[in-house]
């Protein structure tokens, strides 16, 4: 094929190798380092490092946070996307920009906001302390901070799709006698399910790896408020490099699984989108 876009052979080879070298250096190499460093002292040391009580506690906490933050963000994400995509109301564009706020604000700032709101000297802090509810330096704070940081993933994924689909199918369901719930479960949700899954997946990956915001609100109490990324940092700061990389390798593995699932979804989701 001699199209106008066909460049000379050498240029193509040059560009392709440049891209490959770049990818290897910046993406593949760090990944390899994580695993080799983690296994430097042998498999036994690796297994020991990831089975210390503190490590296990950090995994449990991280998974708990994901298990709480992701479903909540799925619900809020659907709600926000629904409002924005299917209704016209004053302040709609402002709401749309607000959804992007967590992307533009540094996670450390997001964490600080929660400390300022719910900390001992925060706006609502005293009320919660009076009622013996701990938010900052406890699990609720970590979940809140994680939710804030990962909020846009679901909504961002849904809004364009819902806007494109419009409201006609929902209205048709109404005229056919569907209740609000029936309309949502039988028409809206099936139409967005792949995009929703995709958004939830990205959201989970980000929630598991969140460091900045969580670091500020966590308080770093070992075995209690340390998530996996925080645990990695602590181990590293204590010169337990192997153990630190071992735990980091678990995070990396989760990232890889996410990547594969994402690719699968894109393959599947792409066909769903093509079905129109």
């Amino acid at each position: 094929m001699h199209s106008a876009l066909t460049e000379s052979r050498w240029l193509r080879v040059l560009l392709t190798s440049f891209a490959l070298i770049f990818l290897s250096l910046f993406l593949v190499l760090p990944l390899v380092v994580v695993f080799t460093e983690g296994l430097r002292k042998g498999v036994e040391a690796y297994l020991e490092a990831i089975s210390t009580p503190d490590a296990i506690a950090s995994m449990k906490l991280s998974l708990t946070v994901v298990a709480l933050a992701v479903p909540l963000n799925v619900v809020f994400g659907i709600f926000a996307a629904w409002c924005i995509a299917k209704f016209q109301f004053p302040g709609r564009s402002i709401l749309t920009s607000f959804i992007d706020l967590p992307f533009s604000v540094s996670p450390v700032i997001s964490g600080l906001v929660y400390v300022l709101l719910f900390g001992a000297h925060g706006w609502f802090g005293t009320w919660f302390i009076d009622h013996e509810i701990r938010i900052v330096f406890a699990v609720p704070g970590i979940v809140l901070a994680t939710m804030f940081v990962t909020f846009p993933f679901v909504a961002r994924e849904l809004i364009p799709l819902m806007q494109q689909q419009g409201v006609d199918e929902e209205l048709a369901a109404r005229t056919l006698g569907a209740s609000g719930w029936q309309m949502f479960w039988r028409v809206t949700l099936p139409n967005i399910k792949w995009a929703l899954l995709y958004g939830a997946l990205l959201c989970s990956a980000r929630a598991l790896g969140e460091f900045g915001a969580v670091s500020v609100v966590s308080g770093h109490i070992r075995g209690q408020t340390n998530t996996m990324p925080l645990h990695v940092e602590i181990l590293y700061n204590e010169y337990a490099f192997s153990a630190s990389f071992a735990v980091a390798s678990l995070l990396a593995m989760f990232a890889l699984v996410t990547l594969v699932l994402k690719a699968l979804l894109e393959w599947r989701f792409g066909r769903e989108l093509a079905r129109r």
Partner: protein
Amino acid sequence: MKIDIQQLSKSFDATRVLKEINLDIREGELCALLGPSGSGKTTLLRIIAGLDFPDSGAVLFEGENVIRRNARDRQVGFVFQHYALFRHMTVFDNVAFGLRIRPRATRPASAQIRNTVGELLDLVQLAGYGQRFPDQLSGGQRQRVALARALAIQPRVLLLDEPFGALDARVRKEMRKWLRELQQKIRLTSVFVTHDQDEALELADRVAVMELGSLVQVGPPHEVYDRPQSPFVYDFLGGANKVACRVRGGKLIVGDHPLAAFAAPDDDNATLYVRAHDFEILPSTSADGLPAIITDIVLTGGTAHITARLADCADVTIELPRWSLEESYIVPGSVVHLKPRRFGVFGPSAGAQTEVRGTQRQGSDAPVRHEHLTLSQIAPTA
């Protein structure tokens, strides 16, 4: 079912999209809401369906005001302009939807649902398509699935929003004929919205013409077409040539030529409306008609589109069957006499904004045979 629409008004922000609409839709009839875009016809249809709500006024189904009931409880069959089929469901599931979501007490058994859906697919000539998805169907087929889905709930009224708007010309014609036959078979009170006058005239039992949120004329198709009560209707249905004219001493005068006897008060600023196919072209030796010179002739299929220039330089378009060109005097450059067989005369027309007020008088039958005269008196806005 009979539908009464009473004093219906609706505004979006500052724009009044419906102005005190009154319309009766009779049992079993097929009624067309005809108007250009922005005339409020779709809003009116959506209000009947309960998908939109008016600011004031009432919609009565068999005498019962349903304005407080939402779409879910009105039992209307609504066919959307772009069909709005559930894209993730098969044709069968689409049609079965309205039955399956019923509360358990009134939901038919699944065998019964299968039968009903089968019958409906037969009715819309889509038997055997049940397992397809909407994206595997042509536009006309999707349209029919949407219709079957709407009919599945045994609606009290069928509402169709621009039902043929998204189809290509050939399919549109077939679908029109098919829908007309179907409606006559099931005799379901139906209302459809269209901006296509041919569609309205061909399909409907009655046509309601809308302009800028007002209902300007309602009647059987031939009546609305033959006796337009306003310049807008004259122009919108069939298109019309507009020629400045005067009414003086019981005569209609164009330029210096008296055209016909016309029983109406004197008016120096009237406009003569004549549809392209209502002109007759006579040789210049004729005593009748207005002198004009033929400037152009374009043929499309069996129709000749003739442009002629009147003495006062106004161009008019005339449509004649192609065989009429056999007359030797109908050639470009030839001087002829144009005689309107049917026409309307209206007072000063200021475009669509003109408010038609005062009494409207049907012109008395003029001595010229087949002629129908209409006069609208326009009271100048004080």
